């Protein structure tokens, strides 16, 4: 077992009170698993990604533990986490395109970064060049400034950089969102390739684009309003989802070839509840077509089939 998250809760401090962005999530990621996290804006998926590597100053660890390879990560202690960041847990940030220092040539920036982790640049340079070639870049990019590269190229440089020291866990936040479809495919493919070559052990990919997850992830975790709704293999989540929210989310995506005049799809009516003061019970019940009296109580996130977990009373 590579990563285990137990009853994790992270709140945001605001002037109007705590926003319960992550309210008790429990899941595991196996070795070599690429897990996609999907959900609407504000469902807590980005917070989950951040909680695993670095809490912002507004974020407060309320309860729960994160265990990586049998060791508990001190996620609430910003300083103590430094020992794990980059070597053990690494991140491809949401705006990877602007994640690089614009005043440094890429090679020099990488040298500074690995040196700061106590690693000699010369010892990783051959591997760095090999991996750059793997994602279709030559070592010439090391002598260039970030501004000279296209968005897709920058994204790939950041990917190589983030995984250079073979971390156990890689967190990718919206890695493909700002890219064209062709670069999207290249980046998603490269991430799977990195996992296959064991440059990274397990990967958490946070995105709002479920169709990209279907292409690259082994499992998909669907979140709703700070809680987990469903987790299963990518194929199961897309083809045989059980949670009504997952069903509606997948149903709201037009497939290539589907037309407005033939089959009119529909969105999900309403908005997710405010997390300042979240409702009790199932948080989706306001928008749920299957809502019943039982939904006043919070459904447990339980296993209904091997490797398939759902939090819904309507699922037998």
């Amino acid at each position, binding site marked *: 077992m590579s990563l285990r998250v137990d009853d994790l809760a992270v709140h945001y401090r605001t002037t109007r009170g705590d926003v319960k962005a992550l309210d008790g999530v429990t899941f595991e990621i196996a070795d070599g698993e690429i897990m996609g996290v999907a959900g*609407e*804006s504000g469902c807590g998926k980005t917070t989950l990604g951040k909680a695993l590597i670095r809490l912002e100053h507004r974020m407060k660890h309320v309860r729960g533990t994160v265990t990586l390879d049998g060791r508990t990560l001190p996620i609430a202690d910003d300083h103590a986490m430094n020992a794990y960041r980059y070597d053990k847990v690494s991140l491809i940030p949401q705006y990877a395109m602007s994640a690089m220092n614009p005043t440094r040539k890429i090679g020099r920036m990488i040298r500074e970064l690995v040196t700061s982790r106590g690693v000699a640049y010369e010892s990783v340079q051959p591997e760095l060049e090999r991996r750059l070639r793997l994602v279709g870049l030559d070592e010439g990019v090391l002598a260039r400034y970030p501004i000279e590269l296209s*968005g897709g190229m920058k994204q790939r440089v950041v990917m190589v950089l983030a995984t250079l020291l073979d971390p156990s866990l890689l967190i990718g936040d919206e890695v493909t969102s700002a890219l*064209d*479809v*062709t670069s*999207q*495919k290249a980046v*998603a*493919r490269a991430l799977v390739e990195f996992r296959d070559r064991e440059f990274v052990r397990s990967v958490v990919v946070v995105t*709002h*684009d*479920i*169709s*990209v997850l*279907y*292409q690259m992830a082994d499992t998909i975790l669907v979140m709703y309003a700070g809680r987990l709704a469903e987790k299963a293999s990518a194929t199961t989540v*897309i083809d045989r989802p059980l949670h009504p929210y997952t069903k*509606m*989310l*997948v149903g*709201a*995506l*037009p*497939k*290539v*070839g*589907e*037309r*407005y*005049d033939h089959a*009119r*799809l*529909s*969105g*999900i009516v309403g*908005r997710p509840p405010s997390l300042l003061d979240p409702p009790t019970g199932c948080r989706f019940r306001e928008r749920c077509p299957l809502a019943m009296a039982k939904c006043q109580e919070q459904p447990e996130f339980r296993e209904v089939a091997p490797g398939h977990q759902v939090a819904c009373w309507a699922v037998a």
Partner: protein
Amino acid sequence: MLELVDVHKVYRVGTFGTGTVHAVRGVTFDVQPGEVVSLIGESGSGKSTIGRMVLRLVTATSGSIRFEGADVVSLRHRGLREYYRHAQGVFQDPFSSYNPIFKVDRTFETLRRSYFPRVTGAQWSERVDEAVHSVGLVPSEVLGKFPHQLSGGQLQRLLIARALLLDLRLLVADEIISMLDASTRIDVLNLLGDLKARGLGILFVTHDLSLGNYVSDKVVILYQGRVVERGVTAAVFADPKHPYTRTLLASVPQLDRRWEEVEADEALRTAALGDRCLYHEQVDDEHGLGLVEIEPGHFVGCFRMAADDPCPGARVTVAR
């Protein structure tokens, strides 16, 4: 209704405008009333520039853009103002289209001041209510709110409602759903479909082919400022001829087929054709490349198609 013929746009770049970027190279297509035309391409394909030229936010360098027969490029002052009564644009980031310190009803009010000074307040709020209803929102829930209190999908629909208050005939929708959540995207798309049924012409600019396909009647595929393929959506998507269109379609993340399967099919096809296409080596001649009509209403601009040895990717012989 809207007609573009051989439109070019050259941007001046560099310190003294010494460099040039040829963003749009000889684009020709038209939009009819009650029709959604999707402009599809990747970053730098010129799709947004075309939308902006149609809205006169940038001026075309050469070529003609005509709206209901009248030249758009040469419009000035009052003419331009009247043009905006009929043609409006909605853009990617809904938040930046609003004044953040105005409540939504005040945003509508500014429209009344500039276009309908003689309409009374009561009549106006009736019209606003009707427009807001027609985009599927409840006026009392949205009008008194500030933009930050509303979701992206609601703001995008309110922008469309604002455009509808005018005598709207042409809507340019530039990536209007790429910032929205999957759960609300489809509502905005369905709204475009409803507007189409009311006889509006819609120019839908996007990089997402599955969305382009869902609403549009015709598609225009752009590559480096040129049209490489255009035609009726069903025909282009069912059997894309241009290798670039095929690459794009094969890269779209789908929900029923994985990339591996799509690629396997493409590989079989390529093996059967046995030749490399030269679409990426298009000659940079003054007029760009002519499009060849390979079936009624389906045009392909492949370098090889106009040459003596037609592109094996298209499997048609072009009569010269």
